[in-house]
């Protein structure tokens, strides 16, 4: 069983390592991740929101849905823990 798990891990790792061949080198400013939406965010965020911290601007404004439902997720987690662990006081 352990050998099987080890083999599965090794296979996944080799596939992923093979996949890194197509990745951009570290710190490449022209990598695909840095070319699409992020330059728009960086250039416009300060003018449109007056917030110098770009992370906060994107977190609170451009990606507000993400943050909102993420707050709901941790709220649900808190509720779930209370529901799972509390016992009826007799």
């Amino acid at each position, binding site marked *: 069983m352990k050998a099987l798990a080890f083999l599965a891990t090794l296979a996944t790792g080799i596939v992923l390592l093979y996949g890194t061949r197509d990745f951009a080198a570290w710190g490449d400013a022209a990598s695909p991740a840095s070319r699409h939406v992020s330059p728009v965010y960086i250039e416009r965020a300060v003018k449109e929101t007056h917030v*110098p911290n770009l992370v906060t601007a994107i977190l609170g404004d451009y990606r507000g849905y993400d943050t*909102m439902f993420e*707050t709901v997720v*941790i709220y649900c987690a808190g509720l779930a823990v209370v529901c799972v662990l509390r016992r009826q006081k007799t």
Partner: protein
Amino acid sequence: MKRLQEQARGRDIGDNLIIRTAVRLLVPFIQLFGLYVIVHGHYSPGGGFQGGVILGASFILLALAYDLRTSLRFMSERTNAILGNAGVLIFTGIAVLCALLGGLFLDYSALDRLISLGPIEWRSLGIFLVEVGVGTAVMSIMVSLFWDLGSGGEMDEGL
């Protein structure tokens, strides 16, 4: 110092004297720093999540150094629940308020119709209000997670 030693003799806190005194001194500063991180999120690394976790950590520190009951004295379960609900409500409430005022959902510039500050200033202020909501919710949930996991749901002495 002498007074502290006498207190220690009276209450039998033994080896924990240094830890408990240090925690007692540190907790207000940790909470102040947590508030600073939330409020200063526009200009420095920080924001609702990080500040909320720091605020929650101050109560967790109290619960670790003393016991769970002591931390319940500073922040009762009821207050904690109210804060958690209020945090999520602030966020969703502001989002819905934007929609009710004629803008898009979560488009803070619509709040300009409520108090006239200019749409861009309102976007900045809206982010701040939302961060306060996130910080409150995260603090409450972190404390509640620790209380429940640390005591197995019993809410007694804890760890």
